[in-house]
């Protein structure tokens, strides 16, 4: 089925870890390099994120995304290497253009941190079913309504895309040119908006009724079909990550 989720179904320890722990990991992975701004923390954190992706057997799946981000970051390296404000030590020359060590190190810091954050998010996105994530958040107190919106988006949007196709067909069928030049396509796009919005509004009204009679608005506590995904070492992991972050703060203050 058409779905917008990037989730990759694999059998791995990382997949078994609960979504909340993965969220805590993202927070820690962002916080640590900020608290300890040395280049070493940056590359160590990045390496850890990549190793976890590898353990989750989704490293190959994440390479295109990491590659794309890396390519953009390469431009940062080039620009900073040549033009960073604090540039002093020349590493090499490209023709008459000097490339500096300070700029390179500065850009490397940015690159490692950015890739670390991308990696940490990829761990969550690639190894967690969106529905599991939403369900854990609802259990932790997120409003079930927001939870519903978050999880239905993944399926309703592909459905809307299918409606767009049908409506395009209906308009082509009545002699509206939708193929060919860019301008023709843009002109064809505008009249689409009306029916698409309208048919989704009609759908929304009908769906609201359907949800209401399925108890969507019933007050009182909800139960869950799926048992809460508890990873045995989940809380130990969360506490130790917290400990590491606090440790880092203390280290930063005294050292």
């Amino acid at each position, binding site marked *: 089925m058409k779905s917008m989720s990037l989730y990759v179904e694999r059998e791995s320890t990382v997949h078994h870890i609960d979504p909340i722990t993965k969220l805590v990991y993202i927070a820690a992975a962002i916080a640590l390099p900020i608290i300890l701004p040395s280049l070493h923390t940056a590359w160590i954190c990045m390496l850890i994120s990549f190793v976890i992706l590898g353990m989750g057997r989704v490293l190959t799946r994440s390479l295109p995304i990491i590659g794309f981000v890396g390519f953009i970051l390469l431009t940062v390296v080039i620009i900073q290497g040549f033009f960073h404000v604090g540039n002093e030590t020349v590493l090499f020359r490209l023709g008459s253009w000097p490339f500096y060590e300070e700029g390179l190190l500065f850009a490397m810091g940015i690159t490692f941190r950015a890739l670390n954050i991308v990696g940490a998010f990829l761990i969550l996105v690639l190894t967690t079913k969106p529905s599991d994530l939403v369900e854990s958040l609802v259990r932790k107190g997120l409003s079930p309504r927001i939870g*519903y919106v978050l999880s239905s988006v993944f399926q309703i949007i592909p459905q809307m895309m299918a409606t767009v196709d049908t409506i395009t067909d209906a308009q082509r069928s009545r002699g509206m040119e939708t193929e060919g030049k860019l301008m023709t396509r843009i002109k064809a796009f505008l009249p689409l908006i009306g029916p698409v919005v309208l048919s989704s509004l009609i759908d929304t009204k009908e769906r609201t009724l359907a949800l209401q009679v*399925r108890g969507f608005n019933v007050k*009182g506590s909800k139960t869950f*079909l799926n048992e809460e995904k508890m990873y045995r070492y989940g809380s130990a992991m969360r506490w130790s990550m917290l400990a590491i972050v606090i440790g880092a703060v203390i280290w930063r203050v005294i050292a």
Partner: protein
Amino acid sequence: MSLIEVEHLKYRYPATEKLALNDISLTAEAGELIGIVGKNTAGKTTFCQALVGLVPHFYKGAYGGSVRIGGMDVKESGVDETIRKVGIVFQNPFTQVTGSKLTVYEEIAFGLEHLGIARQDMMERIDHALHLLDIEAYKDRAPFDLSGGQMQRMAIASVIAMRPQVIVLDEPTSQLDPQGSEEVFRAIQSLSREGITVILAEHKMEKLAAYADRIALLHEGMLIDYDTPSRVFSRSDLAEYGVEAPIYTRVCQAIGFRMLDMDTYPVTLEEAQAAYEAQHSAISASSQEEQGGRYD
């Protein structure tokens, strides 16, 4: 006391002048299958939604009279209470899919989760509903990947799992192909056999005639008739209400085949056949008599 008691129900949608429901009173007993017929603007959908409390609670508007299900007043109790006793299934199977669940099994759980049903109980109910609607085979499929008929049966299962005493079906097959309709009709029959009270609005008169215990004929928001399929479909003024009797009835009416010893016409293929045989044996009996007379 009857399970469903509707008394002098009147309703007008906001910003309109005409009554959508005009003084409807009827009762239905537990386990009955009630058909609702009428032309497109007769008020079938409005009546169906009044039974679950969506009228007036969702639409607002002016409301008079009362609907009581098992003694509970729908207007006073509100939708969230009423749905514990009455479930409703709509026309379009697509827009009833919540979209937040990845499998049919989870989809059926949606209502139960919101009602706060304990997990063990929930699974038993889902398994029973899957079995009743004959969709066990699809329980791990994605909801949007089902065919229309399968999707509509999933919608019914989702409501049935909530264990209502009454299930209201508003033209559940109007957007399905014959195979899908047949699947849904078979499912409705098994619900009825389970003792669930079914209210079914439908255009397919041949089906209603075969399955319904009683038929409510609506026109312009009013209840014109509420009787057995034979009596309602034998009415000579049916066309005035924009309703066509089953083909069997129309043909038999035109050629004067009545039900044996009754003033009504056949409404199903079987009844038409029985009426034909009765007619035939009457004719051959009389011609035998004639022949016998001659030889005497």
